[in-house]
């Protein structure tokens, strides 16, 4: 069953590079704040809500913008058929610390709301009008085996037809995002309702996710 699900696209953002699929978009090493701003500018985005987000949401949101750019699948699906399953190690700790510092003076509701990791799922959902399954899980490391198990279960039982899944983690100077757009294929075709596979699609598997997470991109 599992070879019916495909990674339509992937995006990794790390300290040293930014990849879409196996294409290296940026190879300059950047601090998180710098990375977030330069990506926002270079992508030509105009989304005022971006400036209100915390670092974690900004990172996940930007990764989703790169991930979903130019895909031809999502417009064929209903909002309720597209979900988001994300994971990380540090939950919202980066913002938790900032929020607690603010409590000594005046607690800020605008910061408090970001002290939950799934707010990032909300931000991506609002931008793209995704209304399907949400889940946020915390691990000690990237767990591709679990992501494969859980997302395949959602796709194979018809709960979702497409899912944005992966890892987005921020703590202090450390950051990493690695997202996958995964869709259910029909009759072995990765593109639902379409005769030809979406170019660049690869099998949704633990091995492929681990390779992309490690190396940024993946050769066909």
């Amino acid at each position, binding site marked *: 069953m599992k070879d019916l699900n495909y990674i339509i696209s992937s995006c990794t953002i790390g300290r040293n590079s930014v990849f879409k699929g196996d294409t290296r978009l940026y190879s300059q090493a950047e601090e998180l704040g710098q990375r977030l701003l330069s990506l926002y500018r270079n992508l030509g985005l105009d989304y005022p809500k971006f400036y209100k987000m915390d670092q974690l949401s900004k990172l996940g949101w930007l990764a989703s913008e790169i991930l979903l750019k130019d895909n031809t699948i999502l417009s064929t699906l209903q909002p*309720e058929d597209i979900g988001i399953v994300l994971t990380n190690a540090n939950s919202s700790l980066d913002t938790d610390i900032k929020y607690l510092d603010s409590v000594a003076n005046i607690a800020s509701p605008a910061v408090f709301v970001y002290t939950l990791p*799934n707010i990032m799922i909300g931000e991506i959902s609002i931008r793209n009008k995704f*209304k399907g399954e*949400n889940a946020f899980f915390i691990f000690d490391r990237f767990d591709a085996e679990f992501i494969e198990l*859980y997302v395949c279960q959602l796709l194979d039982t018809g709960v979702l037809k497409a899912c944005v899944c992966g890892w987005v983690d921020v703590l202090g100077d450390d950051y990493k995002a690695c997202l996958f757009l995964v869709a259910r294929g029909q009759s072995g075709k990765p593109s639902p309702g379409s005769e030809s596979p979406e170019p660049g699609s690869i099998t949704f598997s633990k091995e492929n996710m681990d390779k992309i997470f490690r190396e940024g991109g993946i050769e066909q």
Partner: protein
Amino acid sequence: MQMTDVFVVSDNILSPLGWTTDENFTRLKNSVSGIRWHDDTALSPEPFYAALFNKELDQDLAAKLPGAGELTRFEQVLAASIRQALEGCKVDPADPETILIISSTKGNIPLLETAEPGDPELKDRISLFGSAQRVAGHFNFANRPLVVSNACISGLLGIITGARLIRSGRYKHAVVAGADLISKFVLSGFQSFQAVSPEPCRPFDKDRTGISLGEAAATMILSGKSEELPNPLIKVMDGLTGNDANHISGPSRTGSELSYIIQKVLQNVLVRASDIDFISAHGTATLYNDEMEAKAIDLAGMDSVPVNSLKGYYGHTLGAAGLVESIITIASMKEDLVLPTLGFREHGVTKPIRVSSSLLQKPLKHCLKTASGFGGCNAVVLFSKNTERP
């Protein structure tokens, strides 16, 4: 496709109202609330209402949970609840087909408030996965634990996830436990939103003014095996989550997203809206949450179904709420008894939903539990009672 049956084989609630599900349910039937007036400057500069564990909690935990001194307070509360739930069934943590699922929003984050800056062990101490690993180690779970942290739907998402993992065939049993403790961190945050009620919360009431917070731990054990099950049988029929895609800190204006997943769950298991006997709502007693839920229930064609909220008894127990309230729903199903909504006096939402205001004896076969949270997330689970053996 025929879905594997998933049964609820044991449960526990550890709350200010009691340390067993039975103790809790008895208190609820007698309209006892855990919400009290607290004047504690360590938690808040101003006095507040909340349902908090009493000051003797640490001694009580030490007595009930010998050898758990290495666990933090949050982890001990979780472990005490898990221990009692495990004692009520034959599910073995050391079985490679058993998984531990932990639901929490903040876990050990209260430790941040008192931590020494630069403490090298702090990062591991406050990580939710670290907590889950220590609790799993305490019971010798064979598998790595799974941690769900998805705002106020975390508890329900834990149950949904447990059922899915059993149906995937990867596991046979899931021990789903959730907890959150109330600290200055969480209380100041909800106060900054002007969301904390100056009186004990009043879900669905005309004069409701916000939430009361609460502390609890709860555990539900799910099993895909049908041998030696309790009677009556309670099944987790199906569950779904969804997103409003509208606002990160305010619910949908229409309720259509929550309504959609309610209706989809019913379609998936071929149960009609008219078959639903009772809905245990989220009912936080904020203006917008309760209104959104009323619209969702109305849209789903369930205006005549009794609805309650348990927040007037427990306050909002955050990551534990979905578990606590599901376990009480199951206790209600076993006794065919709908509890009143404590704090509710006068109808205060724009749709004519049937908010339960007194003890109601009626057959309960199909019952829904819903939850909603920050980030625009919604969740629903359908529990059904089967008096026949499978």
